[in-house]
C-alpha cells in the first residue's frame, strides 16, 4: 500500500465511521447520466447562478445600497461635482477605482443575461421533448417558479445602481403597482416608503436581491436537482433505450470531469464576453432623477416582452364613481402575464387530462411526433416574440427607418394573427416530417444516384437505413384519442356531457398523426 492510499483510506474511514457515507457513495459514484448537448442547457443555468453568487458577493464589498445624496468627486470627470445617490456613486467607484471592479460588474450582468437565456432555452427543450410528463410535473412547476423569480431578481439587480435608465424602470414598476384597484396607491406607498421615488427602495430591494431571493433560489435549485437525481434523467429515443433503463456514462469519472470542465468553460466564456463587450455603461446614463430620461429606454431582454405588451396596449381607462381603473396597465402588466405563467405551470396537467395518459415517461418525444404540443409551443413562442419585438419598437423603427406607428400596428395586429398561423403551420410541418420519416423507413435514403433502366426510364437508387435508425424513427407510440362514451354501460347519460365532448375533441386533435410504419407495410414493400 502506498503512502497516498494509506492517507486516503484513513480519511475515508474517518468520514464513513461518522456519516456512513460509503454505502451511498458506492451506489451513486456509478450513477448513469445520458449524454446529449441539450442536457447542458440546464447546466449552463446552474453554473451561471454560481457565477452570479461569486461575482455578486464581490460587488457587495463596495456597493453602498443607500439613496443618501452625495456629491461625486471620484475619478470619472464628466460627472464630477454632480449630486447623486450613494448607490450610484459607489457603482461608479466599483467601475473606475476598484481594479477589476468593472470586469466583475460586467461578469455579473452577463451571467444574469445568460442565466435567463439558459433557463428559457432549457424550458423550451423540456417542453418540446415532453420531459415534463409524469413523474416530472413537480420539477416543471419548480422550473416555472425559478423562471419567474429569475425575471424579478434580474430586474431588481439592474435597478440597484440607481442610474437614469434603471430608475425609469422602477418608475414603471411603481406605476403598475399603483394601477392595482383599491389597494394600489397603498401598496406603492408602503413599498417606496412614501411618494415615488423616496429614499427607501434601494436599501429594500438590495436586501431582497442579495438575501431573500438568492435564498429561495438555492432552496428551489437544490430540490430541482435532487429530483433529477432521484428520478434519473430522461433520455432521447434510440437503440437499446427503453422506458425501464437509462443509457449513458457513469458519474465518476467521466461525467464529473465533463460537468466540472463545463463549469469552467461557461465561466470562461462569460469572462471573455465581459472583457470585450461592455454592457450597461451606467456612467453614460447619469444619476436618476424623475424629471429626466434618455431616448431609447429599454429593459433587459427578459423584461422586454412585458414592456412590449404595455407599449401595444390600447389607451383604455375606466372612469366611474370617482375612481380610475387603468386597463392599459392592468391587462398587459398583470393580467396577461398572469395567464401566461399560470398556463405554463399547468400545461403538464392539461396535456395529461387531454390524453388520459397516466403512465410514467422517461423516453423523450421527438417534437414532430406530438404535433399538437409542438404547435401550441410555437404559438406561445410567437406571441412572446411579437411582444418582445414590440418592447424594442423604437430601436427597431430607427434602425430600419420605420415609424413607431407602423411598428405598433404591426405588433397590435401581429400578436393576434401570427400565433394562430404559427400553430397551423407548425402542426402541418410536424405531420410532413412524420411523413418524411415514414418514407425514409419504407424506401430508404435517397442516394442521389440515378440509374437508367433498359426501357429508358430513370430511377433513383434508395439505400436502406440502418436498423438503429429505423428503430429510432418508429419506436414512439402513436397517441389514441380518448373517445369517452356519452352514455355508460347501462345506457344512462354520463354526467358532464359537455366537458366530455370537449375532452374528446381535444384528445382527437392531440392524436392526429401520420400512421407510422407497420409490419404489414414492410411486408408489402418486400413483395414489390
Amino acid at each position, binding site marked *: 500500500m502506498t503512502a497516498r492510499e494509506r492517507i486516503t483510506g484513513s480519511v475515508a474511514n474517518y468520514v464513513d465511521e461518522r456519516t456512513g457515507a460509503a454505502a451511498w457513495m458506492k451506489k451513486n459514484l456509478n450513477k448513469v447520466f445520458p449524454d446529449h448537448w441539450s442536457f447542458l442547457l440546464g447546466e449552463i443555468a446552474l453554473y451561471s447562478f454560481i457565477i452570479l453568487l461569486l461575482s455578486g458577493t464581490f460587488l457587495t464589498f463596495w456597493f453602498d445600497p443607500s439613496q443618501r445624496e452625495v456629491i461625486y468627486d471620484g475619478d470619472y470627470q464628466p460627472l464630477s461635482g454632480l449630486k447623486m445617490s450613494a448607490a450610484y456613486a459607489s457603482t461608479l467607484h466599483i467601475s473606475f477605482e476598484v*481594479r*477589476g471592479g468593472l*470586469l466583475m460588474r460586467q461578469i455579473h450582468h452577463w451571467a444574469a443575461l445568460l442565466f435567463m437565456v439558459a433557463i428559457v432555452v432549457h424550458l423550451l427543450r423540456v417542453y418540446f421533448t415532453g420531459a415534463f410528463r409524469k*413523474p416530472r410535473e413537480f420539477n416543471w412547476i419548480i422550473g416555472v417558479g425559478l423562471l419567474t423569480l429569475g425575471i424579478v431578481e434580474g430586474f431588481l439587480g439592474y435597478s440597484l445602481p440607481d442610474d437614469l435608465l434603471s430608475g425609469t424602470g422602477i*418608475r414603471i414598476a411603481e*406605476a403598475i403597482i*399603483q*394601477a*392595482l384597484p383599491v389597494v*394600489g396607491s*397603498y401598496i*406603492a*406607498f408602503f413599498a417606496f416608503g*412614501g*411618494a*415615488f*421615488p423616496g429614499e427607501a427602495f434601494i436599501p429594500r430591494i438590495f436586501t431582497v436581491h442579495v438575501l431573500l431571493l438568492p435564498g429561495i433560489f438555492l432552496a428551489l435549485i437544490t430540490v430541482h436537482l435532487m429530483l433529477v437525481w432521484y428520478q*434519473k434523467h430522461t433520455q432521447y429515443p434510440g*437503440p*437499446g433505450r*427503453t422506458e425501464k*433503463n*437509462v*443509457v*449513458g*456514462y*457513469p458519474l465518476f469519472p*467521466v461525467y464529473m*470531469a465533463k460537468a466540472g*470542465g463545463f463549469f*469552467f*468553460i461557461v*465561466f470562461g*466564456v462569460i*469572462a*471573455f464576453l465581459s472583457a*470585450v463587450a461592455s454592457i450597461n455603461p451606467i456612467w453614460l446614463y447619469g444619476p436618476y432623477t*424623475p*424629471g429626466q*430620461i434618455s431616448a431609447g429606454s429599454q429593459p433587459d431582454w427578459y423584461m422586454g416582452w412585458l*414592456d412590449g405588451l404595455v407599449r*401595444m396596449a*390600447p*389607451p383604455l*381607462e375606466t*372612469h366611474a364613481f370617482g*375612481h*380610475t*381603473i*387603468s386597463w*392599459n396597465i392592468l391587462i398587459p402588466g398583470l393580467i396577461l402575464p398572469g395567464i401566461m405563467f399560470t398556463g405554463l405551470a399547468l400545461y403538464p396537467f392539461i396535456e395529461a387530462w387531454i390524453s388520459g395518459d397516466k403512465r*410514467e415517461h422517461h423516453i423523450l418525444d421527438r417534437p414532430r411526433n406530438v404535433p399538437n404540443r409542438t404547435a401550441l409551443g410555437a404559438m406561445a413562442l410567437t406571441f412572446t416574440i411579437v411582444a418582445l419585438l414590440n418592447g424594442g419598437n423604437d430601436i427597431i423603427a430607427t434602425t430600419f427607418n420605420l415609424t413607431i406607428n407602423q411598428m*405598433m400596428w404591426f405588433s397590435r395586429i401581429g400578436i393576434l394573427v401570427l400565433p394562430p398561423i404559427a400553430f397551423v403551420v407548425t402542426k402541418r410541418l410536424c405531420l410532413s416530417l412524420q411523413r418524411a420519416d415514414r418514407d425514409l423507413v419504407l424506401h430508404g435514403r435517397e442516394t442521389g444516384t440515378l440509374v437508367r433502366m433498359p426501357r429508358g426510364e430513370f430511377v433513383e437508387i434508395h439505400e436502406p437505413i440502418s*436498423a438503429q435508425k429505423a*428503430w429510432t424513427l418508429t*419506436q414512439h407510440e402513436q397517441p389514441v384519442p380518448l373517445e369517452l362514451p356519452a352514455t355508460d354501460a347501462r345506457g344512462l347519460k354520463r354526467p358532464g356531457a359537455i366537458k366530455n365532448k370537449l375532452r374528446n375533441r381535444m384528445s382527437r386533435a392531440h392524436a392526429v398523426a401520420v400512421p*407510422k410504419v*407497420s*409490419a404489414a407495410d*414492410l411486408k408489402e414493400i418486400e413483395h414489390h
Partner: protein
Amino acid sequence: MSSELEAIKDPGVPAHVHRQADLDPKAEKKAERQVAILFALSALGTILFIYSYIWISEDLFIYFPVLGTTNAKQLFLGLGLAFSLFFIGAGAIHWAKTLMPDEEVIAMRHEMRSEDEDRRELVKTAKQGAAAAALGRRSLIKRSLGLSLGLIGLSPLLLLRDLGPLPGKDLEKTSWKSGTRLVTDPGDRPIKPSDLEVGAVAQVLPAIAEGGHRALSDIGKDAVLLIRLRPEEFQLDAERLGMTYQGIIAFSKICSHMGCAVALYEQQTKHLLCPCHQSTFDVTRAAKVIFGPAARPLPQLAITVDSEGYLIAQKPFSEPVGPSYWERNSQ
C-alpha cells in the same frame, strides 16, 4: 399501442467503437500532451491576469480591430481571467473525451410509486398516530387551533404597516401654488417669456426658498415642460387658451400613462413623445393623446407673469399629475 403494429425490433445498444487513444499508445500519449497543453494555457491566463492587475496602467487605451479604442487594463484583466478559466474546462473535457472510459453503461429504472405493502403500512401508521392523538374526536382543540393558526399571520402582516405612510391626498398635490415662479432645471433661474423663442422647449420646476432642498419625490410630481408656439397655432378653447401666456404653454412632464418623463418634442409636428411607451401628445390641442397607450392628456399648468415680468403659475394643477390610481377622480 397494439403490439402487432410494432414492425421494427429494437436492435439494442450499438457495439462500442474504440477510439484512437484506446488502441494506439502513441495516440494516447498525444492526447495526454494535448490535455497538458490546455492546462498550461490556463496557467498562462492567470499570469496575464496578475500582470494586468499590477502593472498595466489604468489610463492606457489601445486600439483593437473590431473593439475600437479600449481600456487596456480592463481588456487584459478580462482576457486573462477568461483564458485561465476556459482552458481548465477545455483540458478537463478533452481528458474525459479522449482518455476516460467512453463505453456507455446501462442502469435500470424503477417506478417512482412505492410498493403496495409500503403504502398500506404507511396508511396504517398514519391512522394509528391520528387515533392515538384522537385528532378525529377533539373538535374543540382542532377548531381553536384552526382559529389561532388563521390569526397568526396577522402579526407579521401588521408589522409591515410602518413600511410607509398612507397615501392620503399626497398623489393629488404638487408644489405648484398660485404665484409660484417657474425656474429652470438645472440652474434654478427664474425665466421671462422673452427667454423662450418660438419653437423652444424648457424644463422648469417651482421656485424654492433660498437654500431649500428639492427632494426627488417633489421633482417626480413638479417637473413641467414649457413650449412656445405662435399663439395662432393653438387649437384650444377659451379656458385652455387663458392658461397659456403669449404662446407659451406648460404641461406636466410626468407621463399620464406610467410616469416617465415625457421628454421628446418634435418641433415640426408639435408632438410630445414619451420614450418609454411611445404615447404621443399633441401640444396644439392641450396634449391630447394621439397615439400610444396613454389614456389621458398631460395635465396643463396655467401660467402668467408677475409684476417683474417673470413667468409664474396662475394656480395649482387642477388634476393629479402622473399615472392613474384607484382613488383618482378622472371624470
